[in-house]
């Protein structure tokens, strides 16, 4: 890789390898030192994107959009905790001709190890072409280039895709910025919380409330194609799972049963919905076609079996059960059977979520504080990533590198959406207009 010849980038890559822990001996991973936030960040210059000729679009001029796209790239890269981007208020602007011919002598005189340049061009058909180029400053070479044709109103997606291509090129990890999050927006006092279904981009932009809050909404999940959201609502006075169609606003009950239903999850192919249902107080796990039809019961223990999550290949399900006397994690076949407990070692374990990479299962561990952690699907390598009074309900970034969860404040009951990477570092709160809980990170946008 050409990049390894660069002194700055090389040293940063070493730091990243340590961050990801891919080559670390196992004993160094067992505990997470949340006090240690020192980590090398790669300095990247991100001047405003240029334009061959500024043109009006429904979303503003192409020159304005160039600046806005640059700002979103800066914000995305900074939020990952791995980069120190220098935005257009810190570096000089560039001409259109410079986009493919960087002035390396100038950039070598700055602190930047990498350089992102690009352009926004208005096409004749009302669409935009956004070009995005990544350069190694010391080596004076191009590392990657990508181009996107988007409607002017989708300029933020072009910015996320540019940031994704740079993140992937420099880390070797899969992209994740171009994705969306469903969650529950919370307002009002602790004894009378108003809980509304809401959606937003992975960086909090394009925020939209879906329900009005008259009925309590909980535990949403985006379908893999982002066309539907499955969630729990007290719409008819009882907790029931509904499928909400984003395009039409129509929603339907997942089953016609009068029994309460909880904890809905999609299968990775979007064809099946996993859920739990209580009959005479006993909760078991079921699955049903997303088109409706006859549900299949998957568990039959006298305890509470709930919170199932499919492996990314769809062959297995991880769920929680209190059949042993306290909440623990179990793995079974996708059609039921072959149930095997995977969590041991004290404390209660809940809300398991299988990583989209398949290698890990995220969970909430309750032993004093509620903390978010990960373990392998066979129950090994248990690591806790957070430590606060009440962190719960992990959800994975599309690349399986970052875990989002919600944190409740003791006393006030106020909630916020937080995220942390797999190393336990880069913990930060995601900005939401009001309190937020039950985050559900969708896959990369199609």
């Amino acid at each position, binding site marked *: 890789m050409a990049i390894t010849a660069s002194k700055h980038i090389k040293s940063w890559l070493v730091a990243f390898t340590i961050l990801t822990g891919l080559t670390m001996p196992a004993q160094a991973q067992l505990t997470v030192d949340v006090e240690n936030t020192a980590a090398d960040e790669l300095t990247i210059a991100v001047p405003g994107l240029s334009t061959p000729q500024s043109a009006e679009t429904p979303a503003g001029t192409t020159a304005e959009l160039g600046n806005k796209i640059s700002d979103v790239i800066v914000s995305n890269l900074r939020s990952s905790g791995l980069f120190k981007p220098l935005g257009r208020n810190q570096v000089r602007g560039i001409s259109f001709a410079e986009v493919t011919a960087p002035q390396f002598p100038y950039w070598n005189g700055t602190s930047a190890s990498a350089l992102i340049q690009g352009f926004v061009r208005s096409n004749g058909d009302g669409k935009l072409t956004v070009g995005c180029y990544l350069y190694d400053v010391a080596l004076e070479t191009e590392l990657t280039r990508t181009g996107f044709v988007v409607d002017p109103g989708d300029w933020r997606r072009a910015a996320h895709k540019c940031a994704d291509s740079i993140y992937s090129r420099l880390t070797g990890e899969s992209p994740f910025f171009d994705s969306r999050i469903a969650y529950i927006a919370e307002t009002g006092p*602790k004894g009378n919380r108003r809980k509304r279904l809401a959606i937003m981009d992975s960086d909090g932009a394009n925020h939209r409330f879906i329900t009005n809050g008259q009925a309590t909404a*909980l535990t949403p999940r985006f379908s893999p194609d982002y066309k539907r959201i499955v969630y729990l609502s007290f719409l008819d006075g009882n*907790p029931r799972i509904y499928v909400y169609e984003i395009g039409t606003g129509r929603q339907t009950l997942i089953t016609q049963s009068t029994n309460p239903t*909880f*904890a809905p999850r999609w299968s990775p192919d979007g064809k099946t919905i996993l859920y739990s249902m209580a009959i005479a107080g006993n909760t078991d796990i079921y699955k049903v076609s997303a088109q409706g039809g006859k549900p299949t019961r998957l568990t039959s223990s006298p305890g509470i079996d709930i919170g199932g999550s499919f492996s990314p290949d769809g062959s297995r399900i991880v769920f929680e059960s209190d059949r042993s006397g306290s909440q623990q994690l179990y793995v079974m076949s996708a059609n039921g059977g072959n149930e095997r407990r995977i969590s041991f070692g004290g404390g209660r374990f809940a809300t398991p979520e299988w990583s989209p990479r398949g290698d890990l299962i995220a969970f909430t561990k309750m032993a004093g504080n509620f903390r978010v952690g990960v373990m392998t699907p066979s129950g090994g390598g248990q690591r806790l990533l957070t430590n606060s009074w009440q962190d719960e309900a992990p959800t994975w970034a599309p690349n399986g590198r970052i875990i989002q969860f919600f944190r409740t404040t003791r006393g006030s*009951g106020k909630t916020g959406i937080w995220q942390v990477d797999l190393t336990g570092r880069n913990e930060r709160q995601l900005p939401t207009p009001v309190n937020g809980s039950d985050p559900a990170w969708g896959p990369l946008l199609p």
Partner: protein
Amino acid sequence: MLKYATPLLITASLVLAGCAKKAPDELPPAPTGTSDPVAPPAPTGPGYAPGSQGDFLANTMSDRILFDTDRYNVDSQDQVVLQSQAQWLAQNPNARITVEGHADERGTRDYNLALGERRANAAKNYLASLGVSPTRMTTVSYGKERPDALGSNEAAWAQNRRAVSIVVQ
């Protein structure tokens, strides 16, 4: 007259305050204002309509039973409470109840919904064993969504782990 009016007002507000403390979440429906030919029910005790939530609260030991952490068993203390509820239900054969199951905030959301449902069913099943027809009882779980005590301490959590019987009008 004023000499008497003031203490009367105080008494009235004390009674109201006493009610508010134990009052259910839902208020009785507002009067319709139409000239209903049906005679008003004869008042019992301190002015509650028979078969109402107020009457239920005044004539049972409690509208609720409490549970230990993660438990849903009906202990001997709970049995006495539910026996008084069953007795009232026997005396008011037209009354129906919804048993609400709740959990404290120190649990995960999904599990607490299932746990609340299990608690509500435990109370319902015990009432049924005392002869209350299951067709007169429904259950609903609110999980940790509707705390009664708002603190984050053992005392508050103990109050929130509850099954509450609400008379359905």
